């Protein structure tokens, strides 16, 4: 077996070890790379930044621990921005296995920023069938959520006084790893005409650029990179900024593996042809 044939057959365990090293080494070295902010992330930041204090935004969060590595830093960055600017947040939890996680994340950032439950943010709890819930929220939030996540009547929460439906909010920003993004677009944005922005996983982001260009979606925070851009905008480097060096090195390693595979493939194919 020639050298070029050998490099097309690297054992997958070696690939795994190299990827593991590409994760661990930048984590230990803490390499900081400059982060360029894209217009789609800047737009989300600008919308929130330009809202007057006391404005209310809706944040449906639909993800679970499997995608938290990408979406948790996004939620943290947006919540920090909102609480600093005194923007009130209505959190909705539509993904059953993510409910507890997201509740803990809201609590964590609220404690850090000194936000008070019921005054600065509210959690509407879990309801199945998001499409139906999104439609009924357009009539009145109390239709699907007479009580919040903790069983308190929405009318008893100071923040919810005078907040009936989407008309009383300024933005719907979904942090989402599910098809819920489409539900909010079809059953919510198109029917009730609210301003709509997304925070989605990197793999999902490409699907929504068409809605960004048409103006149906006003901004997209895509994946860990988007979260890192948002962190740099609020000047609070955290999990996503730290993850950028890791993601950069892993991407470089994967590209190198692809190049090695192709070099081996073409060289060994050339040799085989020569032999014939």
């Amino acid at each position, binding site marked *: 077996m020639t050298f070029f044939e050998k490099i097309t057959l690297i054992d997958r365990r070696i*690939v795994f070890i190299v990827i593991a090293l590409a994760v661990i080494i930048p984590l230990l070295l803490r390499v900081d790379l400059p982060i*360029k902010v894209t217009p789609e992330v800047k737009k989300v930041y600008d919308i929130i930044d330009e809202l007057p204090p006391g404005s209310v935004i809706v944040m449906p969060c639909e993800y679970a621990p499997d995608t938290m590595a990408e979406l948790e830093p996004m939620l943290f960055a947006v919540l920090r921005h909102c609480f600093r600017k005194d923007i009130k947040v209505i959190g909705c939890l539509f993904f059953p296995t993510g409910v*507890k996680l997201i509740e803990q994340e809201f609590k964590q950032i609220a404690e850090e920023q000194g936000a008070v439950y019921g005054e600065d943010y509210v959690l509407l709890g879990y309801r199945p069938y998001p499409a139906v819930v999104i439609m009924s929220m357009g009539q009145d939030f109390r*239709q699907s959520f007479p009580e919040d996540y903790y069983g308190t009547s929405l009318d008893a929460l100071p923040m919810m006084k005078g907040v009936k439906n989407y008309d009383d909010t300024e933005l719907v920003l979904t942090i989402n790893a599910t098809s819920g993004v489409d539900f909010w677009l079809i059953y919510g944005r198109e029917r009730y005409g609210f301003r709509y922005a997304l925070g989605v996983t990197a793999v999902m982001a490409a699907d929504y650029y068409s809605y960004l260009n048409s103006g149906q979606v006003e901004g997209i925070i895509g994946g860990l*990179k988007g979260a890192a851009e948002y962190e740099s905008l609020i000047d609070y480097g955290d999990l996503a900024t730290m993850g950028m060096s890791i993601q950069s090195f892993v991407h470089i390693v994967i590209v190198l593996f*692809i190049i090695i*595979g192709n070099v081996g*493939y073409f060289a060994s194919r050339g040799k085989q042809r020569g032999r014939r």
Partner: protein
Amino acid sequence: MKRQLPIAITFICAFILTVQYFVPHRSFEMMYEVSNVWLQIIGFFATLLGILSLVLNHWEKVKYKQENWIYSIVALAGLAGMTLVGLIGSQDNPVFEWLYNFILSPIQATMFSLLAFFIASAAYRAFRARTTIATILLLAAIVVMLGRVPIGAYISGGLFPWLADILLNYPNVAAKRAIIMGVGLGAAATSLKVMLGIERSYMGSD
């Protein structure tokens, strides 16, 4: 009757919900509100049916010791255990929190993290520039991979992010729009067929 009744119900519900979308009158709005409540109630029963189906399916596997029946015990124990613990006490039940934070959460996070390793291995083995189309795909993938991380801008002086933005905003959007329009037209046609009773597969084979 067994066929006509579901078709009639489907037609009436679909017709009302379609018409209300275009008529901005209070009576139609009320109809819409009522239908939303109904949908949630029906959804609840659908969830119950789903749980029942899951339990019966796994119970059969355990009862007849079918292939991988041991995993069915884990599934049933997990379902029963989490339900029981969730029902006892409030949302902040410490046992529920412990199970969530130290069992479910690490399991899900681990499963997804493994993807990075498998994607790397699969990309190395399968991503070959065998044909022109495969070469275009390969180059586009490399440009987007490097363009969407800070190191891509660093090593190319901003070229990779610029190219990645072009790929995402033009060819990607063009292809995606065509797919969305096709899917939309298909969905509208299928909905119309269901509404008019032409498409009946949703009623099962009986």
